[in-house]
């Protein structure tokens, strides 16, 4: 029995020393499918209603936040998010320019035991594409037309410019219209923000 205990102690010691040597490498975990998302139009409607139970946190850099952010959003670092008061009944919404950072923020809030936390997938890119500057292709399907009508009223409220009857290639691609994950999301967001700012919105 004593020999077994010694062997187990050696194994534990080796695994722990290996842990110290290994640490610093990023874990190979992708964003799990169980993350709760909120679609930009749904968030926009709650902001429009003045829903007091919604808290929106932007975990991008302060420069990016200053350029443009979702109305009512507050700039937040991950460290500050760990201490932010989270009353029960609040819907916490986080967004960033890349899925991993947004997920870090989402997981941080969840880890504090707060269940109602949503991730605004594709962050400001989705906000611009689906709320601020929705576009309707000339060959749009009935479903796209319905969504556009809803988005156009939201867009006008938030000072955006809805555009109808554009060419299909001018409609932004995103997970919401079946184009899959957006590659280079940070750059696409920067371009979209620059476009909105050029138009003086």
């Amino acid at each position, binding site marked *: 029995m004593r020999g077994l205990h010694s062997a187990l102690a050696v194994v534990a010691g080796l695994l*722990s020393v290996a842990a*110290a040597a*290994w640490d610093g490498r990023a874990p190979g975990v992708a964003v799990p499918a169980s993350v709760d998302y909120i679609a930009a139009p749904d968030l926009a409607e709650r902001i429009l209603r003045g829903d007091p139970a919604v808290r929106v946190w932007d975990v991008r850099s302060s420069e990016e936040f200053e350029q443009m952010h979702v109305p009512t959003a507050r700039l937040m670092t991950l460290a500050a998010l760990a201490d932010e008061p989270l009353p029960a009944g609040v819907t916490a919404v986080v967004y960033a320019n890349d899925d991993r950072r947004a997920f870090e923020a989402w997981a941080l809030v969840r880890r504090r035991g707060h269940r109602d936390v949503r991730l605004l997938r594709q962050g400001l890119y989705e906000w611009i594409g689906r709320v601020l500057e929705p576009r309707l292709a000339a060959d749009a399907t009935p479903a796209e037309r319905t969504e556009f009508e809803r988005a156009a009223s939201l867009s006008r409220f938030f000072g955006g410019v809805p555009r109808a009857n554009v060419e299909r290639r001018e409609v932004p691609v995103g997970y919401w219209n079946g184009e899959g994950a957006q590659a280079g999301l940070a750059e696409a967001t920067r371009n979209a923000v620059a476009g909105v700012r050029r138009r003086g919105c």
Partner: protein
Amino acid sequence: MTAPFTETGVLGPAGGLLVAPLIGFFFGWFLERGGLGYAPKLAAQFYLTDLTVFKVMFTALVTAMIGAFWLDRIGFLDLRLVYMPETFAAPQAAGGVLFGAGFLFGGLCPGTSCVAAATGRLDGLGVIAGMLAGVAAFNGAFPLVADFYASTPMGAVTITELAGVSRGAGVAIVTLAAIAGFALATRIERGRV
């Protein structure tokens, strides 16, 4: 498939409720088999004559810690989804002192008191009754201690974050300290220290 299963959707809320009693059963089983449902054995650690509690608890802690670290590293477990309670330094320190005093006087802690009661020991039932009375008294008196209860908040922090070392280094330090502690505990029990 990534753990924790209740968070990643593999196990729904109902699945979690089914698994919890199973884990609780085996937790109680192994505590009892380890002799931790017997108050004199637990109290003996305070007199340094039997350090089983120390060994069992630190073995569980080190096993879970090394397992969680490596499962996270190979991508099977996402530690970021594991709930971590927030730290309130002063009230939790006071709670720790109260817990230790209760453990010393009763000879049992909450988990082991349930194990003792399940095996028919009256002292286990006595500790459970005291624990429930304490819970009720605390809730009744909560307005008086509410300010202290919420004082010195530190957020969801870990010792490695506070110490500024990597998580892996923390695993190594605690494991090596535990192994040294086991060796020392054995020598103490044999009266060689």
